[in-house]
């Protein structure tokens, strides 16, 4: 197993270290928000949430934090009225420290969504204990109480997003039609989240709002676009050089890669695509040394854009149910052909990573500017060295191409998906800025 070999790859940097005391009591408030996001991304990873659900866990705590902290900055409007169904956020009681409220609020919302609740309970206890030791107790209590109230409203809002109800819907029923998606090795898992389009979006009017007009239609005719783009995946896969391999692995971001050596099976966890971009947002904020308010805005809008991107993408995936390259290439061209990275368990069109990354890059470019040279160290624990980019779009386009190198997406899909992602991103910005949405 190619992925299995990463056991032996070693690098000498650590990034996703668990929080230490010095993180906790950092003077810099922005640092605390970054630390909270480290904790969130780590927890989501060990709790093994699949990509769309992982993004749902990321987004709500960011909004809670944003709504508490934005009161310091009149240029930051409330999301209430902008995001679907978000209502009845409590008014600031006045005498509070928005930062304390924001942190507390984030921790409660995150706790409600993750599996390992104790991580946020412990974090909050540690955070508030230190506050009680060193500051005005009544202000702290009021701030905590307000943060909790915001969290309660946000948590109630999460419960109306149809997530829980969607757990009771039909699991994906396979189609035997030629060109229909089939489960892929190694686990041959059933189709993941076939009803994600029933989840309430943040800004979209409906899940299909940015359904690409251009489609990739299955065909076995050698002159068809599909056949040609399939052959392109095959050709690229057969001629991968080390640079492309590294790119594919860099953006693999598969939360659950199954590895199998006989009975020795195991699972390798990487942060999901959205988690990777949360970490990119974090590094960009750190590099620019932005205020906690600005960082909150960056995180919130990034997560919102990616959340809607997943809904838009998954809507497309299960509407088209397109077969993955490994399945069709094995059937038609080469029975032994294997993609360089493992194919995740859902249909091919459109590419989740492409849509999500480009939605997020659109936000980051708007909020942090362009060009924005940065070095991403997120992937060190997963065996890939740091990687430098000149702009967010450079990174998001590379993440899209990487899926073709990895052998899990067709070039045509990648191209169409990039546009889908950008459209979602632009729409989110427009809604946030109260401008009319446009395609």
């Amino acid at each position, binding site marked *: 197993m190619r992925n299995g070999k990463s056991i032996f790859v070693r690098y000498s940097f650590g990034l996703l270290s668990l929080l230490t005391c010095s993180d906790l009591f950092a003077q810099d408030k922005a640092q605390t928000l970054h630390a909270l996001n480290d904790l969130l991304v780590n927890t989501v990873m060990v709790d093994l949430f699949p990509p769309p659900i992982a993004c749902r866990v990321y987004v709500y705590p960011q909004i809670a934090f944003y709504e508490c902290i934005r009161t310091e900055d009149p240029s930051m409007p409330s999301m209430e009225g902008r995001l679907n169904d978000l209502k009845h956020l409590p008014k600031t009681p006045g005498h509070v420290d928005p930062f304390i409220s924001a942190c507390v609020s984030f921790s409660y919302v995150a706790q409600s969504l993750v599996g390992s609740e104790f991580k946020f309970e412990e974090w909050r206890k540690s955070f508030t204990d230190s506050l009680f030791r060193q500051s005005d107790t009544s202000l702290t209590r009021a701030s905590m109480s307000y943060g909790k109230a915001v969290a309660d409203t946000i948590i109630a809002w999460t419960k109306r997003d149809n997530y829980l109800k969607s757990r*009771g819907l039909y*699991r994906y*029923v396979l189609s035997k039609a030629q060109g229909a998606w089939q489960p892929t090795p190694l686990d041959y898992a059933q189709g993941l989240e076939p009803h994600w389009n029933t989840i309430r979006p943040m800004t979209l009017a409906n899940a299909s709002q940015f359904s690409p007009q251009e489609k990739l239609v299955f065909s076995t005719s050698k002159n068809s676009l599909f056949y040609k783009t399939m052959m392109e995946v095959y050709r690229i896969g057969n001629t991968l050089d080390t640079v492309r391999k590294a790119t594919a692995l860099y953006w693999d971001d598969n939360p659950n890669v199954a590895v199998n050596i*006989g*009975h020795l099976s195991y*699972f390798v966890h990487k942060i999901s695509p959205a988690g990777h971009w949360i970490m990119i947002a974090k590094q960009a904020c750190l590099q620019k040394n932005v205020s906690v308010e600005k960082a909150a805005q960056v995180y919130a809008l990034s997560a919102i854009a990616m959340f809607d991107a997943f809904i838009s993408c998954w809507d497309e995936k299960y509407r088209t149910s397109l077969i993955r390259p490994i399945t069709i290439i*094995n*059937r038609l061209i080469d029975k032994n052909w294997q993609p360089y990275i493992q194919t995740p368990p859902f249909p091919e069109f459109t590419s989740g990573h492409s849509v999500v990354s480009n939605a997020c890059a659109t936000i980051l470019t708007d909020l942090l500017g362009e060009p924005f040279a940065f070095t991403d160290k997120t992937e060190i624990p997963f065996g890939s060295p740091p990687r430098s980019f000149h702009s967010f779009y450079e990174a998001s386009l590379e993440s899209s191409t990487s899926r073709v190198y990895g052998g899990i997406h067709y070039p045509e899909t990648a191209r169409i998906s990039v546009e889908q992602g950008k459209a979602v991103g632009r729409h989110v910005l427009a809604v946030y800025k109260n401008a009319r949405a446009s395609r």
Partner: protein
Amino acid sequence: MPGNSTGITFRNDVLEDATMFMYLYENLYAGGGVAIGDINNDGLPDIYFSATRGYNKLYLNLGDLKFRDITESAGVNGGEGLKTGVNMVDINNDGYLDLFVCKSGFKDPSLRKKMLYINNKNGTFTNRAAEYGLEDKSFTIQAYFFDFDKDGDKDVFFVDHPDDFSKTMTINAAMINGKLTRIDDTVTVNTSDRLYENRNGKFVDVTRKAGLIDFAFGLSASIHDFNNDGWPDIYVANDFNKPDCIYINNRNGTFTNRMTEYLNHVSFSAMGSDINDINNDGLEDIFVVDMAVDEPVRQKQLFAVNQNYDKFQLMIDYNLFFQYPRNTLQLNNGNGTFSEIANYSGVSATEWSWAPLIADLDNDGWKDMYVTNGLKRDITDWDYKVFVLDSIMKQMNSGRSVNLNTWLSSIPSVKTKNYFYHNNASLKFDNYSDTWADQPGSLSNGAAYADLDNDGDLDLVVSNVDDPAFVYRNNSREMGGANYLRFKLLRSKVSPDELYGTIVKLTGADGTTQVQHYDPQRGFLSSGEHVLHFGTGDQAIIPRVEIIFLSGKKIVLEQVKTNQVLTVYESDATQPVAAPLKPDPLFKDISNEGKLKYVQSENNYIDFKREPLIPYKCSRKGPYHALGDVNGDGREDLYIGGAAGIAGKLLLLNADGSFTEKNQPAFIADKSYEDMAALFFDADGDGDKDLYVVSGGAEFDRGSVQYQDRLYRNDGKGNFTRNTNALPAEGYNGSCILPLDLDGDGDLDLFVGGHVLPGKFPQADRSMLLQNNKGEFTDVTASFASPLLNPGIINQANWSDLDGDGRKELILCGEWMAPMIFTWQNGQFTRSSNTVTISLSNPVKKDSLVDLDELKGLWYTVRTEDLDKDGDLDIILGNRGLNSTIGGDFHHPCTIYAKDFDNNGSYDAVLGFYNQGKCYPLFSRDQLIDQMPSMRKKFIRYKDYSGTTLENLFTPEQKKGMDVYMARCFESGVLINEGHGAFRFKPFPERAQFSNINDLVVEDFDQDGIKDILAVGNTNDPAVMVGNYDATAAILLKGDGRAGFIDIPAIRSGLNVRGEVRRIVYLKNSKSRSVILLKNSGEARVFSVK
């Protein structure tokens, strides 16, 4: 026995280093083998151990269970490389046993050269593998010597495996001639199983010519003549995706894999195997071990394969067959098929198992079992493989170095006890692991039995990883009485080579028989003593002993004294083996005579996609049928209902006994319905048979119009039109129909049973009582029969006078409920109060009188008949049977907690069953989380879930208002009417409990004046976790006139059927009797009855 007493100090210490550890060679902990045999012909069996990474050891038996290590002087240390299976076999027929050593593991082929140590007859050996052509370098687990071409010498079969273990679970498919076909790897050099033909002492690889090239991860084989043609066939137990094989010897140097003709399912991770007769019916049975765990906490923590429905289906689609991760005990039916009964017999889970040995360990005449188990690293521990290993890898990626030992020691390691099973002579085995020996935990692999001290009982030698080998002295003889008889089977005094495959059959004074074939190569990596051993219990003289040689000759000995070792020479055999008597069974398969051609197709609806945690599908219960003369020609015509999307069919019976389909546009128009029970009756009083078809199938949403029952009017000539106004509008998922004239107006009223509430298993949909007013039906349930509004998931109803008062009672049977009896009095149906006496065996054997309502089961069919001839009707009931992963008994009910536990609009039904005294949920942590995301918070790690009882799965708050369903009885049987509302439950015999019973007919089939029962069963409805019910498609139960029955095996009844038989159509006229067996997803079979 301690090593300092026996002198056997061998330990298989498996070194782990950078050149060889588990992640480089997955079978590293498969351990070493044991070969036993008398190498110096001093009458004492000696022992040879293979060492995985160290050196092999040869111990000379000095008598009195003392041994001396002579490895060095004998020159047989096995050399370098990773040693696997060992044999003692006299390869050159010089009367001295030689040693054979297999190797695997290392990539370097020179380290895999097999070794053949030829016995120099002076205590030394010389490796002459190259000379003999046996220096094969394939990755071999074990060698099996046998004479496949019957030319009088020993050929050899090697069980091999590919070296790339990343290919164990992949399923490659390609389009071939427009059809998706599974593709196997074609690189099979050194990895495919191998067959070498012995040509005058030189072995030649004939694998390809023999048709034995494969790409499977084999772990053992058993040589056995499966088709009784006198030619040895090969069973190969394959680990992983590839199913086991039964290679039938074509008698021309080639073999054909016919496994699927013999078996209905196999073990997923098949390891060791043995073949022997467990029930003394003269037919040898197959036992293959897997890695299922019975201890409840470890069972959840180590669960081997989290098989999802789609993948399981994919494997079936690509001919990888039905494979389940548990041991399989294939009971030989003698008709070319086997029934898998490991669950029934209690031997399905013995931990990570290696060697199964079937032998009579207590000399009582019934063969017991010994199973070795243990893997040094619990690599299937879910927390380890999902969380721990990943975090180690991240540490390494982040630059922290992790040394190999630290890593390996992070893998849980538990030494478990091996299993002793005592055969209790009724197809069940009792766990004697703590009774027969004081066993420590161990990591045991190869094992072999032999009478080491020549006292007439079988001692055991077991190879252990990281511990000294076990030598168990058997004290049976010392403890008393039981006799034995042992055989050495040789060609002749001049040429004393051993004749593997020779069959010895003992017939006792009471007519009981024992059969064994001689083959020392059994279990795993090992070969046992070179004597065939029988325990004979209290029989000191065996009236008849038959020795049947592969050559087709036999020797018969009479009045043989026990407690001796007989040496028998084939050269003394003169009698030819008689051809078996051609059976003349009661039932004769006449399906090919063309009287009826009917194939049922089931629509592909997957209940588990809507309700992932239910134990079985409810949508594939058909076909149902109705019998009635529709055209007035005096012959009973047949309606067979269709699954959703497939129209029902009307088949007219012709004078010659054949059926002709009559086109019915009305049925075709209604094909979208799934037909459940149907009834021909005169609904409108015009003198002809109309047709009522119950709609059901559970695949539509609750209340759907697809559940509307249908009434078709007959024009008197057998043409049907739907009368859409005659029935009340309803959307109930129905199942059965029963005519009954309640109001005494001469026309028939109807009871229509409701089945499961769609999407809300196991809640029941409504049942209906329909009053007939001149062909118009009204739902009068609420007015006259409120207890019948929702009595349960009803499968069948019956209308019989049970109390002899001249009025009939309504009997209902169904799932997760007790049989119910309702009396019709004063214009109302009332549930009657009844008792039942059941005999309990657990914890103590006693009779218990309980309310009939306690007899909750999964009842599929109900009939009545006076079986004990006491003048009242007894109730005959089909149930789910006792041969399944899930089950229960009176004190240990299979239990379902059901409620919308997470308030998301979907009903969560969680099934639990008892294991070692507590009730545990069936499904895995991940499956629960998929249905109820909040479980992720409760069970952060797998270990938090492992060992959680059903009771503790939910908080007291969550459990408030939940529905609890139970099944306490899984046996099919008879409720004997004892009068005054009292019954006694008498279960059917063993074979009738091997599967569920879908339908039964009570009739004096053998015309001895006593009613018999024909019962049909099997279903592929269960969840993958549970596994198909496939062990009994049809069985004849011969009545004894006292409501007792004898189960007649198919080979005697003639009921040779496989598949899911749902219904019996019994046709009887003055001239002939016949039965049609209607299958789900298969072709109907027709049998004449003598």
